[in-house]
């Protein structure tokens, strides 16, 4: 197993290196620069700004300088927010996005697993169709539609919950968490239904039932463990996806997370910020995928055996 993890870590290094290099040269080849604005910038001012951000150096020297800074964890100063480093901006946004992602995933797990198990218990009946139909709607409904809809119902008409902010007013974390978690809840519902259906038809479940165990014990003690393996495998990439893809929800609910900075950085040609967020999020995705692969390998005896024999 250790060899497997080391092997995957080694594979991750060139992936991240390619991401850094490609992003570095792509953002610089995009038309327009960080200091372009609607009002003309005087040439001498532009020169002074470029010198302050090392943009007056040849491109390859900028690249080497960036890699040098990156090697000791320095993502550079932001172009858009003078006086703030990219590290600091990421540091301020990450806890918020991670908290939002955690709540969203918790909500998704709770609703998704309940709906999936419930549906799998009586397949092809109303008990199956209703939750699965709702799951399909959840998958199809984009967060830019669901978010404002929830805001209108619970924030404006019923006046139960705040409609924006994060940690400013009691209850302001509920609507964004539900909005972000809904699509994932729907995926999890479908995954857990499929997993449970497969497990519930296994011989050992039939044996458990034949021994006279009540149905709820068959489900909770025997079937769930195997039935939720696909869901667990999905959690790693799902959490990484939640961190990287929360932009829409953060914008709708005015949440000070990473997503807003990520997207704005591209519009602003904030070179260091684009690179910083891309490097950071790609590392995170690689890391979560690795964890998820490790868990899948650990749960699957055949894969485990394979890595005992040789790493490939």
């Amino acid at each position: 197993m250790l060899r497997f993890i080391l092997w995957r870590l080694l594979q991750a290094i060139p992936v991240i290196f390619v991401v850094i290099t490609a992003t570095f040269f792509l953002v610089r080849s995009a038309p327009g620069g960080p200091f372009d604005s609607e009002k003309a910038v005087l040439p001498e001012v532009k020169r002074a700004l470029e010198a302050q951000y090392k943009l007056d150096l040849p491109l390859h020297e900028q690249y080497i300088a960036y890699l040098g800074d990156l090697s000791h964890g320095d993502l550079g100063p932001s172009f858009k927010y003078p006086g703030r480093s990219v590290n600091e901006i990421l540091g301020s946004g990450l806890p918020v996005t991670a908290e939002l992602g955690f709540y969203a995933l918790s909500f998704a797990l709770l609703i998704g697993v309940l709906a999936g198990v419930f549906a799998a218990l009586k397949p092809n009946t109303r008990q199956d169709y209703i939750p699965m139909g709702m799951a399909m709607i959840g998958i199809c409904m984009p967060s830019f539609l669901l978010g404002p809809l929830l805001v209108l119902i619970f924030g404006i008409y019923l006046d139960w919950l705040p409609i924006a902010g994060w940690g400013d007013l009691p209850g302001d974390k509920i609507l964004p968490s539900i909005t972000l978690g809904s699509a994932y809840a729907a995926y999890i519902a479908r995954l857990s239904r499929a997993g449970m259906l497969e497990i519930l038809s296994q011989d050992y479940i039939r044996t458990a039932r034949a021994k006279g165990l009540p149905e709820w014990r068959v489900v909770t003690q025997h079937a769930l463990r195997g039935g939720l393996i696909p869901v667990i495998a999905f959690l790693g990439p799902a959490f990484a996806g939640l961190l990287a893809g929360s932009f829409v929800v953060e914008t709708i609910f005015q949440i000070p997370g990473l997503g807003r900075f990520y997207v704005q950085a591209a519009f602003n040609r904030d070179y260091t910020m684009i690179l910083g967020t891309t490097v950071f999020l790609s590392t995170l995705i690689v890391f979560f995928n690795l964890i998820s692969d490790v868990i899948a390998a650990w749960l699957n005896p055949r894969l485990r055996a394979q890595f005992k024999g040789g790493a490939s």
Partner: protein
Amino acid sequence: MRLFRLFLPACVIAGMLTACGSGESNVESGNANGILHYGNGAEPQGLDPHVVTGVPENHIVRALFEGLAVKNPETLEPEPGVAERWDISEDGTVYTFYLNPNARWSNGETMTASDYVWSWNRALHPDTGSLYAYMLYPIVNSEAYSKREITDFGEVGVKALDDHTLQVRLNAPTPYFLQLMDHYSTFAVHPETLLKHGKMTDRFTPWTRVGNIVSNGPFTLEEWSLNRRIIIKKSEHYWDRDNVALNGVYFYPTENVISEERMFRAEQLHYTAVVPLDKIPDYRERPDSPYVQAAYLGTYYYLVNTERPPVDNVLVRRALSYALDRDTLTRTVLQDTAIPAYSITPPDTLGYNPPQLFDYDPAKARELLAEAGYPNGEGWPGLEIIYNTQEAQRKIAVAVQQMWKRELNIDITISNQEWKVYLNSVSQREFQVARRGWIGDYVDANNFLDLFITDGGNNNTGYASDEFDDIILNLAPKAKTRDERYGLFYKAETMMMNEMPIIPIYTYTSKHLIHPSVEGIYPNLMDSLNLKYVKLHPGRSLSGEAN
């Protein structure tokens, strides 16, 4: 079972979350505690007056700092700020500011004239890279210093005569100079604080952070959570503290205008930066409407590249302008939130009214187009309008496209470009017609007309006229009276608009939702608000409900 236990924390969290309720709104608690909740449009780039540019920054910086003179919130006339009074020499080129002896920095230190000399050195120094350095260019030798043509700041026309007297020498009488003193780029910064965190010209130091910043305005910085909120509170050392009604202001970075409007409806905000266009009719119909609209010192126009056919022909440019029904456009597409424009300077810019050389006249437009060689659009080579990707820009471009097709029978292509790509196309003049807007930095026609001096950075049209340049750069600054000066502007603007390097479309308006409990925000041409004068009245609530 173990797996099931994993869900327990999730259940607990969900339970905790759902147990919460919305409780007291921001507006209710704010009214009780003297706290204004302010939708500020976007996260400010920073709070360093010599580094930032932009409207959201302006609102916060002008609450934290104060200039030598400040604008009256209703009339925009200059009033005493840090300077309690000033003298202007007879020829209008020497200003002597007498600083209020009670003017203090937020750390309690007295403000001095040398703070201004140091600060303006910083603002003008080329290494600082201040995008607004040109605001100080009326001062003798400031432009040369800023462009490194001279290196001794002693040659620049700013001098501290004593601790409380600042003398400023100008190149020419500059009637709007006092207005510039209320622009953040001319504010003083606290030298010791900046030097504690870096060099004078550094842009990256943390001197503006909570705990570090020393300012001189009616408010001080209390909290700055990135992309969440900025909190300022009433300053203890401000010279006019007794006249500051608010205890504090919460600024929210409300980029999403739709969310911002919802926040206003849910009473999470007292004030919105903008109002979504489709919500305006609803708000207008309400009794005691919180919707406030006022003429704004800005013009929306189409830039024309006068070096590219077919718009290199002035007859074509005129035909296009005559064929545009601006009244219909502003009434329908813009929901009556804009004023039709026929020139670059907005009407009644401090008493100056620009010439109107044309009107909506389709017959005349067709005649001009025929004269240019395209009778009824025959032989028309095509024309492209570029605009930055935004729904509002697209709607206007589509309306213009249809009007030109209907009146002139010509085909127009409209292309959207991502913001920075669009800026690049405009600055490289890679366009035929491009959407453009200009918001004045100060109330004076000069701020609009000097856009079109030959090869000016904001010209982008290819328009070049020695006579126009001479009026704007030499004759108008030396004019003895206001009438003479305005007469020269009128002449220059007539000359420029005859050549039609731009097609004016509308004059902007400012649009806000203001809670009935707020007093002291007056509509004005600069959309300028001084938070010092804002008061809150508890007990007033929103009436009616927009859908």
